[in-house]
């Protein structure tokens, strides 16, 4: 160890040099610099309270999908012929100042011969408690076993129409729960179609450039200048009438996805173009990484977060699109129950005036669409965690 000889006129600190000493890295910033970008995104997303709440709501909705048969108190096709257009039965807890637990009051039915209307009056004399984990209508659970256990069922010999009944006496609440299965999956399947197409065409345009890029760009412009709904109408009118409901379902989702990809493709292309010029890509190239490795390890993870955010923002338009198509009678057809199919029955003014509960499916539609919008906004903000 030799003594440090100070040069003339220069000050040199004799203390041993410790890079960490001058600016001690706190625990917090240390973990910030070491965190992966996905972790950073998660931290940033978590700060967006509304988006987190929206994500939780969506998660709850989607977790319910596999168990709709258990949650719905009735089967979706069960007709209660004595209770046609029955209004919703509110759930009460207290009867004559005494706590009884959740119960409903039974209906008394009479027919108003003057106005030709069904009149339902509530009989508040005897409360009928709702049963839980009970046996009711039989259903095929996941197409495997026949079962009849429900989360909650109507009282013994009573009725439980939380949201009223429709023109065939079918329980609206049960039908909305069943409808969730179709309405919620249609957005996901549709976005999968549009995501694949967008990634493929956007990737080709951004990666190959040249005339391919030019052709795809023009294609995107033309598709974006077409009004969606008339095209959806025309395409779904083209679905053969003899298709089974399941085939129609897939047909509709593909139609929805088919016209939606240009936005995503454009995002992919511009991201690819800008990322290609980044220093880290140059560095990877200089270190001898193959093209495939650069794309898979460096480019895709970088724009995937953006893509997921824009895809999330595109789902609501698909859900609304299905609702609109089914409402017009060109979308899904009755044995399949979706929120749009349910709204199709609320098409006339009589529904708004006499049976407003038929409009209830609009509530889950609005909730889900809003939740997707809020979550998408949060994701988009979080997608760029370094800003």
């Amino acid at each position: 160890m030799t003594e440090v000889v100070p040069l003339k006129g220069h000050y040199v600190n004799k203390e041993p040099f410790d890079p960490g000493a001058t600016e001690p890295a706190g625990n917090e910033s240390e973990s910030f610099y070491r965190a992966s970008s996905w972790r950073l995104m998660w931290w940033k997303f978590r700060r967006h309270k509304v988006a987190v709440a929206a994500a939780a709501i969506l998660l709850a909705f989607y977790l319910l999908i596999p168990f709709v048969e258990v949650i719905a108190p009735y089967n979706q096709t069960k007709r209660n012929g004595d209770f046609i257009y029955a209004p919703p039965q509110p759930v009460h807890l207290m009867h004559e100042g005494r706590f009884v637990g959740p119960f409903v009051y039974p209906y008394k039915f009479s027919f108003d011969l003057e106005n030709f209307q069904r009149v339902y009056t509530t009989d508040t004399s005897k409360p009928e408690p709702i049963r839980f984990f009970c046996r009711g209508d039989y259903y095929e659970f996941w197409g495997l076993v026949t079962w009849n256990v429900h989360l909650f069922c109507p009282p013994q010999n009573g009725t439980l129409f939380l949201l009223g009944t429709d023109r065939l006496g079918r329980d609206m609440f049960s039908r909305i729960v069943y409808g969730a299965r179709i309405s919620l999956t249609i957005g996901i399947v549709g976005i999968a179609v549009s995501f694949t197409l967008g990634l493929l065409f956007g990737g080709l345009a951004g990666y190959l450039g040249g005339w391919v890029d030019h052709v795809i760009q023009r294609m995107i412009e033309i598709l974006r200048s077409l009004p969606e709904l008339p095209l959806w109408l025309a395409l779904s009118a083209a679905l053969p009438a003899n298709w089974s409901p399941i085939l129609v379902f897939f047909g509709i989702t593909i139609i929805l996805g088919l016209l939606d990809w240009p936005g995503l493709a454009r995002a992919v292309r511009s991201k690819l173009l800008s990322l290609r010029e980044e220093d880290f890509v140059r560095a990877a190239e200089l270190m001898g990484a193959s093209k495939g490795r650069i794309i898979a390890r460096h480019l895709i993870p970088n724009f995937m977060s953006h893509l997921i955010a824009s895809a999330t923002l595109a789902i609501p338009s698909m859900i609304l699109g299905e609702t609109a198509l089914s409402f017009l009678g060109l979308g899904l057809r009755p044995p399949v129950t979706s929120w749009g199919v349910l709204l199709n029955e609320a098409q006339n003014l009589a529904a708004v005036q006499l049976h407003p509960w038929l409009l209830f499916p609009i509530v889950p539609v609005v909730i889900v669409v809003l939740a997707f919008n809020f979550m998408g906004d949060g994701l988009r903000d979080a997608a760029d965690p370094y800003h």
Partner: protein
Amino acid sequence: MILFLLRRFVTMLVTLLIISALVFLIIKLPPGDFLTNQIAELRAQGEADAAAKAEFLIKQYGLDKPVWQQYLVWLGAMPGQNGFSGLLQGDWGWSFEYDRPVTEVVGDSLWLTLVVNIAVVIFIHLISIPIAIYSATRQYSVGDYIATFIGYIGLATPSFLLALILLYYFNRWFGISIGGLFDARFAGQPWTWAKIQSLLAHLIVPTLVIGLAGTAAMIRRMRANLLDELGKQYYVTAKAKGLAPSRALLKYPFRMSLNPFIADIGNLLPHLVSGSVLVSLVLSLPTVGPILLSALKSQDQFLAGFILMFVAVLTVLGMLVSDLLLAWLDPRIRMGGGR
């Protein structure tokens, strides 16, 4: 500028040509067509004479030719039965369902569609610009939150249901009957001042319903643009030098934030036209929407094809106008002669 106009115009023509091919392909997609279905039906009823007439019609419209030839005839680029007579020559085809020329079937509904869509565009601008300025200058105020909330609701509610509900309540509260675009007593009457008044009164609900989603999107974007501009130094300097707040706001940041706003009309228009088709169906407005739906359902191909084409021309023309406005507003685009 002339070069820019020319280039924009040629692009539009090419776009329309491709759209026409797409439209024809789509209306040809379903198996069979109106006439074949009709012939089968007539044969089943044992009316050989009528079936013979329908077969004559098939010959007449060249429906036995290959699809690409049919397309060219429809377009007017290839001689059909009556020589060169197609969209390019102003012959819009024959509606099989109504057994009348398409021109007669669509008639008034064409320009009523135009009126509804223009009313909606004006409505969106009149409403969203002041609200956006208000919520950007008073960010996080109660008014801002209310505007944002209403905007989100407008974004999330299916327009057709909103139309249905408003239809009922407007009728109940204000006594306006809203089905259609004017009172029934004016049907088939010549245009008088009373009829125009009735038309304006009936336009309120459709405009509101179709415009709501667009307004919501516009407010959101405009607010974000304006907020970006308000944070910039030139605005701070202008205010520091004592320029009146409204003048400082309107003269610089507002004009800057208008740019992307006008460029966005192009994105907005397809959605508006979609919305107007859907809402027309619910409110039974005499626009092309209801005619399109029935034509699609009965495979009345020339009628459906013409309406789809009309709607596409409407959007493409609208986008051209928005591009021209943008070029007029922004010298960078005008001088660059393109993008």
